[in-house]
């Protein structure tokens, strides 16, 4: 075989071997990064590292990845520490905000939750306190899904003096057979010196195949 082709083939195989080594060299990074998670949709794709390693195969020297990894790791550690500090600061700031704006003695909070199956598709809620409109909310599909999964929305927080008060809530949405629904409820409650939490639960009334309100005043 002419010399020219041998040298080219030899070099090509060297490049191919480098590509192949990169594919298998992906394993340590892949194994380190992959976090086995729930179910197929949650499984970790370690091969992403294989791809990035393979694409860098042809020119990367074996030593370079190890050296390069330490600098990003150190920076990443500092970013994580900063995140933790900011989260703690946010907690303290939110506590201050609540104590300043909504002291415990006058605080009242209204919550919305759902316990419906397929009977009702919530679209909006409107809430009045002592005949004064305090909260309206239009629901996104994501919010409705969160409510369906058991989330409870704090729709309003404010201040009330001690004594008797009245909360009136209306919710609108779509019920069975795509019919529009509007339901309301009114409840009186006593506000003392402690915070008062009121939960407006939208439930299925299976007997009547209609949604209805249930109000829980938390002690």
């Amino acid at each position, binding site marked *: 075989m002419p010399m020219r082709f041998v040298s080219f083939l030899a070099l090509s195989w060297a490049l191919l071997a480098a590509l192949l080594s990169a594919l298998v060299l992906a394993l340590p990074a892949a194994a380190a990064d992959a976090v086995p998670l729930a179910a197929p949709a949650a*499984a970790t*794709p370690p091969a992403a590292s294989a791809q990035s390693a393979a*694409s860098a195969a042809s020119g990367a020297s074996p030593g370079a990845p190890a050296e390069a990894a330490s600098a990003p790791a150190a*920076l990443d550690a500092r970013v994580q520490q900063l995140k933790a500090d900011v989260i703690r600061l946010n907690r303290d700031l939110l506590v201050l905000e609540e104590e300043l704006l909504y002291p415990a003695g006058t605080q009242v909070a209204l919550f919305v939750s759902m316990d419906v199956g397929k009977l009702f598709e919530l679209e909006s809620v409107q809430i009045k306190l002592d005949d004064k409109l305090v909260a309206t909310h239009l629901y996104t599909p994501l919010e409705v899904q969160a409510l369906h999964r058991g989330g409870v929305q704090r729709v309003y927080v404010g201040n009330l003096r001690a004594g008797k008060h009245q909360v009136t809530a209306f919710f609108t949405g779509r019920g069975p057979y795509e019919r529009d629904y509007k339901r309301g409820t009114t409840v009186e409650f006593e506000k003392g010196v402690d915070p008062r939490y009121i939960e407006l639960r939208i439930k299925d009334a299976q007997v009547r195949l209609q949604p209805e309100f249930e109000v829980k005043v938390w002690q």
Partner: protein
Amino acid sequence: MPADRQSRIRGVCLVASFAVAFVGSAVAQTREPGAPQAIAAPHYGDTLFNFYQDKTFVAITGLMVSQHFGRISPHDDEAEVLRGGMLLSYGLHDEAAAVFARLIESNTAPAVRDRAWYFLAQARHRRGLHTAAEAALARIASPLPGTLEEDRQLLRAQLMMQRGDYTAAAAVLEALQSDPKAAPYAGLYARFNLGVALVKSGEVEKGHALLDAVGKTPAPNEELRSLRDRANVALGFATLAAKQPREARLALERVRLNGPQSNKALLGFGWAAAELKDPALALVPWTELAGRGAAGGADAAVLEARIAVPYAMAELRAYNSALQGYQRATDGFDREHTALSESIAAVRAGKLVQGLHSSNPAGGATALGSTLGIRALPEMPHAAHLSPLLAGHVFQEAFKNLRDLQFLDGNLKDWRDSLGTFTDMLDNRRRAFAEKLPAVQNSRTHADAAALKLRRDALAAELAEADTRGDTVAFANPREQDLLDRMGRALGTLARVGNEVDLAEAGERLRRVAGALTWQRAQELPVRRWEARKSLKAADVALTEAAEREAALARAQRDEPARHAAFAARITALSQRLDGLAPRVAALSTEQQAQLQDIAVAELQAQQERLADYAAQARLAIAQIHDSAQFARRDTAPAGGAR
């Protein structure tokens, strides 16, 4: 979808699925999986509401606030596990590990401890503490609920692979695969990992078998199809290196023609044909491959195909075509080299990061740790050069950090404004208090209240005495009182003029009227006594309220200045903390941006080096073809020399 974005999304899904499963199991009214669970504390439900919408920063800070105010009970343990899981999904491994360690040490239920051990194992694994992670997994006493048990087995297998125990890892994955309760594709990634590990460690047959199995698995979605392609490419190149070109072709044939792995597969397919000494067959995939990446940003496989095609032509003795092919390749490589230099200059000028932000806005998902990765290439010259890099884990993580830092910067700025507002509010309250205080202090409220109390006591004594004596006159109403007065005056008149005039009849009538009035009052006495007592009680309630308000007012007068001062001190302290964090955010943002640029420049320079190698090979091949043509001409020249 970029792999690390998948990884992050799965991380959030894991914590979400865990949270749902965990919430359900901790409350008595457990319903069918996936259905809403009973929440016994509305603020904990609010945390879940935010968490289910992927507003993890709001969820975690809201949860910490609710924990501060003690309004999470009876979900305290679940809340801690949820908080630890969310911290873990942010990459705050140390914080998460501390949360889980505290849960384990405290007197929590065994089910809670098991979950905490599992998440602690995960946190340790992510920090690279694999032995400690295995130790944590070994402490789990019972199977975990739902999909967590599967995840636990996958983590076990991964840790076994980490320490080289591939046999044990394979056994765990086999057991998982044969478990009827496991999800259909459970452990597929782990088996791919194991296959590559076995090939690397020399257990080639087993490794090939695993990769072959993964490469033949039916794939119902894009994610699994992509994994299947990776497995077939890995198997193809592994068998090619083992001098098994036919097996390599079989594996590479299974890779999709248009997918993330198709270029590598086409290249390998061609080399397998070349190994079988069939350059004409090799030309087919290589020609297809060489035509890809025309818009720039060709990956390594495409670049190699551009010189593989003329090589194959040379093998087929089509030297002119080969020469032209090599020439085109070198021209293309030169142009590409120039384009890469322009890209490097653009990256160093900051256009990459700028472009990434513009083309990948965070939009509504500006929360910390957003799972939105890089979805579109930035608007810059030759952006396609960077697509392999942008899809890679290292760059994605670095970009995520940069985005997180920007979020933190915005968050701190918002709080700076809010603190200014709080300071103004506090000043207003102080002023209002100072203005109202003298008026309150000078008011007769206290004196009035004391006087009212005295009057109340006097009335109560009067009532008691009248009640004891059965004094109906005391309970007379104004009309009766008036009649009694008139009767009194009439009796007085009778007494004065009784001797002068005969008023016996008048006196008798007066006596009967007095009697009737007395009778009437006697009849009404029980009702009036009851009403008087009731009124007194109402007065007591009002007086009590007034006393309470007065006490509250007194407390406010005494405590409010101190409260204002305490708030002011807290605002000052928090401002100082905020001022300390802001420069760190700015510095780390600059550093992170520089790191992103360095990663990109390194990748582009590596591409330039690759191009230089290929160009050198092409030029060498051109020289060799010219040389051999010259030799051929010399050989066929006439035998006689110069005449």
